[in-house]
């Protein structure tokens, strides 16, 4: 059952060193505030799972929290590279980074399989791609009915799933609107889930088919206003595209990243 708590309490209670953690949000509703709190609490050896690592995992990798990265597209959308991730892969800085690389279809299917309680996902994928040569989690099976060769990957079942959402009601039921990505799948597939929200309201006013997570599917709820910035929260604030552009210069250089980390995360306190 959902318990309201502070961000610091939720991360302290929910995220342990060595955990596998999926922080999702497909361009939209990326839980940046929660990511920064993980950095402040100096969590170590995490396996981070995310379709599009984006700036949030660039920051966590640069801060030295990450052992393994599971992903399917690792860039700064519309801008260029994730320089901290690249520095870790190419130069082992600040530490070596293992990668487990997939396609979007594979990860989306794997999250769905996790939510569905299956051990693996089956889909028509990876045909002719060399990703299966470098990722032993990609296998192929033969359909027992049609003999078609199909791809399969293990279900994603993270220790911790973290998402941001627009709002929760006072009971802790959560409403997600706009680009919903894999938000529902992450919460349902994770052993422990943390949801940060823009605000708490008396009534959700959700349409019958809205994307709603009942309070009993969520462990911790945290009010984190602006918690998805520099990504966006549909109906609340827009994507800060300039921040994404500026990140290129900040992250390119180890020293400027280190300064950013000090002033914007470590000394910023949090909510």
């Amino acid at each position, binding site marked *: 059952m959902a318990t309201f708590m502070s961000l610091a309490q939720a991360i302290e209670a929910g995220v342990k060193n060595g955990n596998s953690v999926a922080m999702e949000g497909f361009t939209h509703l990326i839980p940046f505030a929660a990511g920064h709190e993980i950095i402040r609490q100096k969590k170590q050896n995490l396996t981070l799972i995310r379709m599009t690592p984006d700036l949030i995992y660039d920051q966590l990798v640069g801060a030295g929290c990450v052992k393994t990265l599971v992903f399917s597209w690792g860039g700064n959308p519309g801008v260029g*590279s994730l320089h901290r991730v690249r520095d870790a892969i190419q130069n082992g800085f600040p530490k070596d980074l293992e990668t487990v690389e997939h396609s*979007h279809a594979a990860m989306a299917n794997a999250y769905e399989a996790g939510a569905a309680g299956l051990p693996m996902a089956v889909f028509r994928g990876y045909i002719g791609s060399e990703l299966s040569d470098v990722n032993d989690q990609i296998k192929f099976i033969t359909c027992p009915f049609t003999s*078609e060769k199909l791809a399969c990957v293990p279900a994603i079942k993270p220790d911790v799933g973290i998402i941001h959402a627009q709002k929760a009601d006072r009971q802790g039921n959560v409403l997600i609107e706009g680009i919903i990505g894999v938000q529902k799948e992450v919460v349902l597939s994770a052993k422990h889930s943390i949801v940060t929200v823009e605000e708490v309201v008396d009534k959700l006013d959700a349409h019958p088919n809205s994307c709603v997570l009942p309070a009993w599917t969520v462990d911790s709820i945290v009010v984190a206003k602006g918690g998805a910035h520099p990504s966006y929260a549909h109906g609340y604030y827009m994507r800060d595209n300039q921040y994404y552009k500026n990140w290129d210069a900040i992250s390119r250089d180890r020293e400027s990243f280190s300064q950013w980390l000090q002033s914007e995360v470590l000394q910023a306190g949090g909510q």
Partner: protein
Amino acid sequence: MATNYTSTEMMTITAARSLSSHMTCFVGIGLPSEAANVARMTHAPDITLIYESGTIQTQPKILPLSIGDGELCESALTTVSVPEMFRYWLQGGHVDVGFLGTAQIDKYANLNTTVIATKYDKNGKNGKQSYAHPRVRLPGGGGAPEISTNAKEVFITVKHSTRTFVEEVDFVTTVGFGRDGKARDNLPQVGLGPTAVITDLCILKPHPQTKELIVVSLHPCVSRDQVIEATGWQIKFADTLSTTKAPSDIELEILRDLKARTEKAHNQQEDQ
């Protein structure tokens, strides 16, 4: 016909012309997105544009910076989850054209967006080796590996240079026709694959039998030598080589307006 246009504008407008109103197009970010929206704003007003963020039948007024900008969702007919997008809509066979960009492309239209390798060892060269020793780590596959096989056909748009057009890609992220040109043989559930590659110099299409990309149309004022110099393999030309039609004044105006509007909107966001 206009005469005062850049080679990039020529590429975008040519790419736009490859699309038509009756198509459902799964759009990659960047050049494909620009071309698809120019098509929608010119000759293909009823084209259905789908982005992997889940937005179906979207009609953005400005170009998105990312694949999931709010503009895409707000202007869409509906927005579905990402698993639904890849399972029902793409894998389910509802996409006519996948429109992709790339970092590297080879003569069998295989795409590499994973790694640029350190060593080019011609004999021992394979994807695995390149992956273990990247000189440049690229973003990765994203939606492309399955767009390329589950869409009925694929268009690719990318600028022409020897850095991009290589004889063999360092890593096959997304299959065109495979390293031997035969990857799609005897696979009835898989789409036609790349049927057109549109660059700032020319249009290439796969040879019907060998699947090797050959030049079928040169853009106005582009010579064969320019294409030969910008291609990393011995490029072949079709027996009957066309000249691509230059952009019209209206097409250029719409493209330039779209880009100006996009820039202005992004700058306004910065001022907030």
